[in-house]
């Protein structure tokens, strides 16, 4: 019998779908019978989803300008060969 601790140890691989099908089936069975692990699975999945969906914010204009200035200086100082 799988314990909750066994389930937690495999949770990441379960979510990334990188498990052996037999282990996956055993974990599925556990999660369907254990409300706590079901909640942990659901909320971990949603945690990952909310981070994955994050678009990077635009960077401040002054930081962008300083980056471009530094690059232009570099390109002028050491141009690539054509």
């Amino acid at each position, binding site marked *: 019998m799988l314990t909750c601790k066994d389930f937690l140890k495999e949770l990441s691989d379960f979510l990334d779908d990188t498990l052996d099908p037999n282990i996956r089936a055993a974990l599925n069975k556990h999660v369907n019978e254990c409300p706590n692990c079901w909640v942990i699975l659901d909320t971990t999945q949603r*945690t990952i989803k909310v981070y994955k969906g994050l678009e990077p914010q635009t960077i401040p204009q002054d930081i962008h300008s300083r980056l471009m200035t*530094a690059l232009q200086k*570099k390109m002028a100082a050491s141009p690539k060969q054509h």
Partner: protein
Amino acid sequence: MVSGTPSTEANDELPLVERARTGDAAAFSELVQRYERKIYRLAKHITQNDEDAEDVLQESFLKAYTHLDSFHGDSKFYTWLVRIAVNEALMKLRKRKSDRTVSLDEPQDTGEDLVQREIAVWEDDPEKKYSREELAEILDTAVQSLKPSFRTVFVLRDIEELSTEDTAETLGISIPAVKSRLLRARLQLREKLTRHFRRKGDDVFAYM
């Protein structure tokens, strides 16, 4: 503010990288425009410091330009660039923390530290209760509270969406170490977000 980036599909990218390699400044600028936001975010996440993040951003693109010849297209340009940026960011982090030892030891993998205290169902769409800025703040604060070794793995795997293998190679750690840290990072973040996103008046699971 800088306008949105064009498609980051990798397949149209090799010709662009090729042009940049032969000295086409406009092509390199285009690569910068594509990835500066992600590299800056990555740098901020790892260094947790605005000034360091800007240094990392500049150093990464300057190094990328200098070493463009050593990019052979066997990985995505972005993966190659991330590797440079992570190295720069980790150097900054180590410099700042030189008075404190940053432990790179693996935790004893007994699984004892995996115990979850916050177990509660979430609201259906908790994200919708917050403005974009508030949500970004909640998510950022949670990530920043992770210890550096967990944070770095989480950022690479679940925010920048690198593969387990690329993450291991970028950080110079083993695949089991990536997996172990990622699991812990995800579970810790889950607990932190639960404090914000739990369904109110429905704490029954917390006491089971």
